[in-house]
């Protein structure tokens, strides 16, 4: 009989798991531990509306009243010190311990940092939580020079927002194009051009050697070739590392996330992991930490069910969205992979655009730029592995929605 479930980590995965547990009729105790002193909130807004000051605070994922009504014991601002899977106990900061029947680790990921001279200067920031976003927002404004190290999703989102706030924005990217890993070269280059049109300076192939400061505050970024640019603020946005400290201390082998099966179960019985901290199996092979909103949400629901003995394996198809230079970009599946890419839409202007990776008469991955409605249809083709051919998809008159309706789930799998 499961009467005590502990959830460590109070972000999207933790909150979603709590909601799923109650949604599935579990009426035992739920202890929800989070390091931040607030209730779970919408993290994507930290680089967008909250950073822009349009919203004072990120929207809560669930209203405060929900936790009370659902009888969830919320421990905000309490960092769990240790987990002991053999005895099924947590060690709390107070020194007290807590027994559980099932444990979900939903500790998320931490911003990766650079170990360079000057990396600890005031004004060298990362962006991961609400405090980070407030800190950055307080420093932005007209004329402030912001150097963003890393031209990935967060870097490009912040560049958009900071530029709109009047800052002088520079993106420093070590690769020869922005967004290569997530969006590929074509859309990466297109986004760069859109950002440049907003007035963002993009420097590629950069090798940063140090951050230079005066009076403890950052003043410039120095490059290996001896060049330097002035910077009042530096944002280091070079990716995230799954936070697996508790699992590792407990003896679990981790590799960019805690390896779990497709129900979220780790190598320890009764210990589940969901969200960015989980190295979760993918539908199309392999496993990794996905670091996306929708996948975290799905993993949390799956792990919650599995904790209650209702295991329904859910290998993931990566799904992400971003907003760059005023454009809505959405992806499903991995950009890198076998098959042929084809383009639908306005390829000349780059928007609206739908890119599809077609393999073995099915859409394996898709990327949309401002084509949200078609993308909604395509995600269903990808998920159902609906059989569809390249010539069909190449035909501009071929209506994806009508096709899907006429042949629901006519796919493999």
């Amino acid at each position, binding site marked *: 009989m499961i009467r005590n479930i502990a959830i460590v980590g109070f972000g999207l995965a933790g909150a979603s798991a709590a909601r799923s547990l109650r949604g599935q009729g579990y009426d035992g105790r739920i202890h929800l531990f989070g390091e931040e002193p607030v209730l779970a909130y919408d993290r994507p807004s930290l680089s967008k509306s909250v950073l822009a000051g349009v919203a004072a605070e990120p929207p809560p994922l669930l209203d405060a009243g929900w936790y009370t009504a659902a009888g969830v014991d919320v421990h905000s601002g309490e960092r769990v010190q240790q987990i002991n899977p053999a005895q099924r106990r947590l060690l709390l900061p107070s020194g007290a311990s807590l027994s559980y029947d099932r444990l979900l680790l939903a500790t998320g990921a931490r911003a990766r940092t650079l170990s360079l001279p000057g990396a600890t200067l005031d004004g060298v920031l990362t962006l991961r939580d609400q405090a980070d976003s407030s800190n950055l927002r307080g420093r932005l404004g007209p004329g402030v020079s912001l150097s963003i190290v890393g031209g990935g999703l967060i870097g490009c989102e912040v560049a958009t927002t900071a530029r709109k706030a009047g800052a002088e924005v520079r993106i420093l990217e070590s690769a020869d194009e922005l967004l290569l890993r997530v969006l590929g070269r074509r859309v990466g280059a297109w986004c760069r051009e859109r950002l440049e049109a907003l007035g963002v300076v993009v420097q590629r192939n950069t090798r940063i050697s140090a951050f230079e400061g005066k009076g403890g505050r950052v003043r410039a970024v120095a490059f290996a070739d001896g060049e330097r640019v002035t910077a009042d603020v530096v944002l280091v946005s070079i990716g995230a590392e799954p936070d697996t400290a508790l699992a590792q201390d407990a003896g679990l082998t981790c590799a960019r996330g805690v390896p779990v099966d497709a129900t979220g179960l780790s190598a320890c019985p009764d210990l589940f992991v969901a969200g960015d901290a989980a190295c979760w199996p993918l539908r199309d092979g392999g496993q990794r930490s996905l670091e996306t909103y929708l996948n975290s949400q799905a993993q949390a629901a799956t792990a919650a069910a599995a904790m209650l003995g209702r295991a329904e394996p859910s290998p993931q198809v990566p799904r992400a*969205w971003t907003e760059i230079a005023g454009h809505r970009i959405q992806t499903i599946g991995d950009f890198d992979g076998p098959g042929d890419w084809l383009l639908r839409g306005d390829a000349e202007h780059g928007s609206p655009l739908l890119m599809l990776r077609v393999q073995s008469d099915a859409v394996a991955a898709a990327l949309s730029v401002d084509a949200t409605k078609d993308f909604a249809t395509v995600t269903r083709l990808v998920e159902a592995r609906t059989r569809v051919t390249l010539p069909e998809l190449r035909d501009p008159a071929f209506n994806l929605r009508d096709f899907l309706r006429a042949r629901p789930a006519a796919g493999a799998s």
Partner: protein
Amino acid sequence: MAFVRVCGRSDVAEGEALKLEQFPIPLALFNVDGEFFATQDRCTHGEWSLSDGYLDGDVVECSLHMGKFCVRTGKVRSAPANGALQTFAVRVEGDAVFVDFDAAAVTP
């Protein structure tokens, strides 16, 4: 209490939606297998138009962040959406569809 003609029945195909812009806030009119429902058009989660969403039965999925709502009741069916939609009374007479904006009291 005023029902206003917004379109003909055939202007919205089954499984589709129409954005209505003649009211103080934009509404979305959904055709669920021949039944019509009206809700606020703006998603309660992000700044996006639900008439641009994907309608599956009586559930619309916002095409921006994939939150889901029941268009019959306005209730949230899937996160990231958190707040319910306002819904509006709809009447079909003959070939015409009418919406009552003022009686926005149909909130679930």
